[in-house]
């Protein structure tokens, strides 16, 4: 099996989807740029033409509405936001329209739309170029939300999102784009709503999303070596639908639960998972649930402040140790 980069895996998924289905098209800011979306769309416009791969004006709500309208007419658009921050303008079309449509009209037409938003944190980009808004998206009925952390899942989840028949929010992180992994050449799906155990362990369950899966694995290795704490790392891959059973069965084994999500804490993914654990896994808990997240503050620019702002494996190690000593 070929070992390729995360960004290449996305490129391969898009290439194969465009090749297979004439109803698929790719739009958004930067899709014909060599760098704006991290090289994920290289070569696509040359192969599929400017009719099916085209850059759009900076009219986020209008362009999103156009993608929704095309989906209602039977197309399967992939719409990219090079930064999630730019998507706020499009909330009306995403939430009032795409997410509500199927229900609001009694299950007649659906909106087979993939909204691909890239988290672009760090790099002194400050508060309007670095946001992670998965929790807001997860809150909306009618939207599915996936967050791949490996090249394999990046490809398989993109294929699942585009072929699902519903609006699916595909959130990934630029920090993952250079990471490498095994990716089959053929087209395949990673099912929505199915998580995976990235590392088996018996002392504590750490559920991490997107890039934080890598930090969690690093933390787990260090904790095993230095503290003899055996961490089980779970990657939910989809945060909606969520693989609740996987989380609860791991908790049953370990009795300790830490959620790692690099977004604001209040009302975040961690809050939701903690509530699930508190209401459905209470009897398994040996210690209070813990959360690793961003503080409830906008992202700063200065790299000195960024270092404190973003959690790393060290933050996870500290939190796990606090949980285990209880």
């Amino acid at each position, binding site marked *: 099996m070929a070992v390729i980069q995360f960004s290449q895996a996305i490129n391969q998924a898009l290439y194969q989807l465009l090749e297979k289905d*004439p109803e698929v*098209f790719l739009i958004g800011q930067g899709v014909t740029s060599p760098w704006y979306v991290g090289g994920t769309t290289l070569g696509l416009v040359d192969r599929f033409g400017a*009719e*099916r791969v085209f850059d*759009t*004006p900076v*009219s986020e*709500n*209008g*362009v*999103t*509405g*156009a*993608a*929704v*309208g*095309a*989906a*209602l*007419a*039977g*197309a399967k658009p992939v719409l990219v936001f090079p930064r999630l921050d730019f998507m706020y303008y499009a909330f*009306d*079309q995403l939430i*009032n*329209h795409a997410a509500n*449509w*199927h*229900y*609001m*009209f*009694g*299950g*007649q*037409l*659906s909106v087979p739309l993939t909204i691909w938003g890239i988290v672009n944190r760090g790099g002194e980009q400050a508060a309007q170029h670095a946001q992670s808004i998965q929790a807001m998206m997860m809150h909306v*009925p*009618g939207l*599915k939300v996936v967050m791949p952390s490996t090249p394999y899942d990046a490809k398989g989840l993109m294929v699942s999102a585009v072929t*699902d*028949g*519903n609006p699916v929010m595909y959130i990934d992180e630029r920090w993952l784009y250079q990471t490498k992994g095994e990716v089959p050449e053929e087209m395949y799906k990673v099912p929505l709503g199915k998580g995976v155990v990235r590392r088996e362990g018996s002392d504590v369950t750490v559920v991490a999303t997107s890039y934080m899966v890598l930090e969690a694995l690093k933390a787990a290795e260090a904790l095993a070596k230095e503290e003899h704490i055996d961490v089980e790392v779970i990657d939910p891959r989809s945060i909606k639908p969520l693989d609740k059973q996987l989380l609860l069965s791991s908790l049953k084994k370990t009795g300790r639960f830490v959620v790692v999500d690099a977004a604001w804490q209040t009302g975040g993914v961690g809050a939701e998972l903690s509530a699930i654990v508190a209401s459905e896994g209470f009897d398994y808990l040996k210690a209070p649930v813990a959360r690793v997240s961003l503080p409830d503050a906008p992202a700063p620019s200065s790299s000195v402040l960024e270092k404190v702002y973003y959690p790393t494996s060290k933050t996870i190690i500290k939190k796990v140790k606090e949980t285990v000593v209880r």
Partner: protein
Amino acid sequence: MQKKAEKQRQSSSPQDILKQLYRTMLRIRLFEEKTAELVQKNEILCPSHLYIGQEAVATGVSASLRKDDYVFSTHRSHGHYIAKGGDLNALMAELYGKVTGCSRGRGGSMHLSSPEVGFIGSSAIVAGSIPLAVGAALAFSLRKQDRVSVAFFGDGAVNEGTWYESMNIAGLRKLPVIFVCENNLYSTHMPVSECLADTDIHRKAETFGMSGYRIDGNNVIEVYETAKKAIDAARRGEGPALIECMTYRWRGHVGPNYDIEKGLRSKEELDEWIAKCPIDRLEKQLLQQGLLTASEIQRIRSELKKAVDDSAVYAKKSPYPDEKTLLDNVFKES
């Protein structure tokens, strides 16, 4: 006017089209009057925005549309739904919140849909469905189909950024979409002159490289002819158009009242527009030209009245959605 009608009869618009326009307008009017009555009786509970006075716009535009052309509408959508060929029983049942409604009791008056006749849906977010029409046109154009889509919206939608974005995308890519502005002079209660720096909405078309028209929206023949020209051009791949139809809603923004009692507009203004009733106008013309007799008109009226009354009986008799189905259709099952 006579000359125009004469031209219509000789060329693309035979007498049948005029009669059809008349029937459609009257069907909408009678349906809306019935709705007003049922709202007053508390039979219909969902907020209903009535189309009375504006019937010529939906009717004149839809007459040139095919079934596979798409229409997107607004909170005031009963007229658009009926003009595109939507079923009256399913519409009334939707207003009653019944499972036999066109949106299975999930949408109500503001969210109607009938995909089988190309009425894709109505959104209650001002300007919300305009980019959807642009997107449908984009899909048609990518497939090289000769289909068009229509966005109906009010003058209030022109205050929204989405309107400008949608106009720009359509103009930029020469998409087969017709923007139909129903300028009824009020955005809810706000006069258009208090909302727009330039109230000549049709002139904004030029900025986006498309044709713009301002027409008498109470003259169904003028609406029909202008829309036909724009729709035919869009079908040929000549790009979008903006048609501003000057019209007036007789009732208030929402519900059966007239807004006179609230002091939001004058009785004189309303009376002036009632005198310009699009249906009376065409009826006079049909009678004058001998296309219909008074007794034929009476027959059409009672036939349509019966269909509307029947729809209310149907709606009332229909079952409500089963409580157990509350969570159905949040997602499409794969």
